[in-house]
């Protein structure tokens, strides 16, 4: 019997390998203008 269902991989750690190209959207430009959620932003490298 399994007691855990893991939804995703260790995304944060893996992202370090991608570096920080800075080509992504500035979060404030989308819709929030104050609330600053960044986790829904797309990575430009992964979008390609």
């Amino acid at each position: 019997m399994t007691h855990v269902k893991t939804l995703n991989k260790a995304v944060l750690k893996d992202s370090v390998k991608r570096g920080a190209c800075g080509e992504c959207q500035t979060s404030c430009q989308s819709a929030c203008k104050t609330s600053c959620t960044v986790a829904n932003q797309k990575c430009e490298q992964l979008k390609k």
Partner: protein
Amino acid sequence: MIHKYKLMGLDIVLDVYSGAVHIVDDIFYDLLDKIGESFDKDADYSGIIAELSQKYPESDVKGSFNELKKLVDDGQLYTDDFYAEIAAKWNKKSVVKALCLHIAHDCNLRCKYCFAGTGEYQGHRGMMSAEVGKAAIDFVIKNSGTRRNIEIDYFGGEPLMNFGVVKEITEYAKEQGEEHNKNFRFTLTTNGILLNDEVKAYVNENMSNIVLSLDGTKETNDRMRYRVDGSGTYDAIVPKFIDIAESRNQDNYYVRGTFTAENLHFADDVMHMADLGFLQTSVEPVVAPETESYALKEEHIDTVLAEYEKLAKLYIDRRREGKPFNFFHFMIDLDQGPCVVKRLSGCGAGHEYIAVTPEGDIYPCHQFVGNKDFKMGSVMTGEFDEEIKSTFEKSNIYTKPECSNCFAKFYCSGGCAANAYNFNKDINEPYKLACEFERKRVECAIAIEAIKAMEGLE
């Protein structure tokens, strides 16, 4: 560091430093409860296993413990903070890559909660000239280094009061972009009063995003968003917003509202937007001094958090009914999302992102415009205050003591610098109410993703 919580019928565990999310059963959840905040591979946990075996079958408790150890070994549970080192060596050399252009410091509405003083921004009413706008484009080309993607947000006041200049700047940016190998992406934020077919055609051809201001139901919207003569805007703008959303195939736009102490049950407003047919929605908490009657205060926190949970349930119900829509703050990509450096540093205000006034003055972002202490320079002279830039550049979640023990830090990146400054006079001291709200939004967003994955929902 882990964060575990129960929501929407699920036991959820977030491993903060790896970003892994686990749905667990009650045995595993209770086991984590007993183990606590950290796990030591060499420690003896037989006492905990024996204790839990009084409540659950011993084989299940031992099975859970073995799964837990495997997750630890795989770097998906109780992972260490390996970003502190990155932050300690933080020497971010930013380039400017996004502009908020204040096309009009004037507005045809008199919204009660307007942070911009109904368009004036503590200054005088005025329109940006094409000359200033073009100088801003030249400035960003010059200051963006090798960065290719550049964002321009046409903001106000109401930018459609100066639409001719919007078009002139856009055409100039496209032309200069080709010459300098820059890819300009444009966004327009509008209250909709002056939207017409000509604007729609131009926006759809040229702009990657349009933000349409609407607070929700007619009652909610018109209580706050009214014209100079006091008349509400809902009836005039909603048909136009539906039309432009449809013309963009219900994508690359947001209907964006603000909730206040006067409509704490904002889930009803979000659902109203969805009922109108909008698929891209965003409703944000108002940011206002506590002296204002509509301001959100500590006494409202419980109600607001409950409302986010209510919205999350309704949001999933719509997906189960095959009628999904998006709510900006519930959109978390658990598999990809931005890299950790982006998550450490946040919105980029003051170093990657700047606001430009109609006169060409530079501020760290639209929220700082009018605060002379934060005037950074001018696109007309090219002057750019490196000291202020550096202050913002250095700020990240590790320079904010409040973030150290917060599970949501990699999802909000330390919150809004302007809010922090306005409430605490320090960009490194986040605004408490915003943190409370963000934590709940992140919990809801993760639960939603879990249910979507488990039920195969869109």
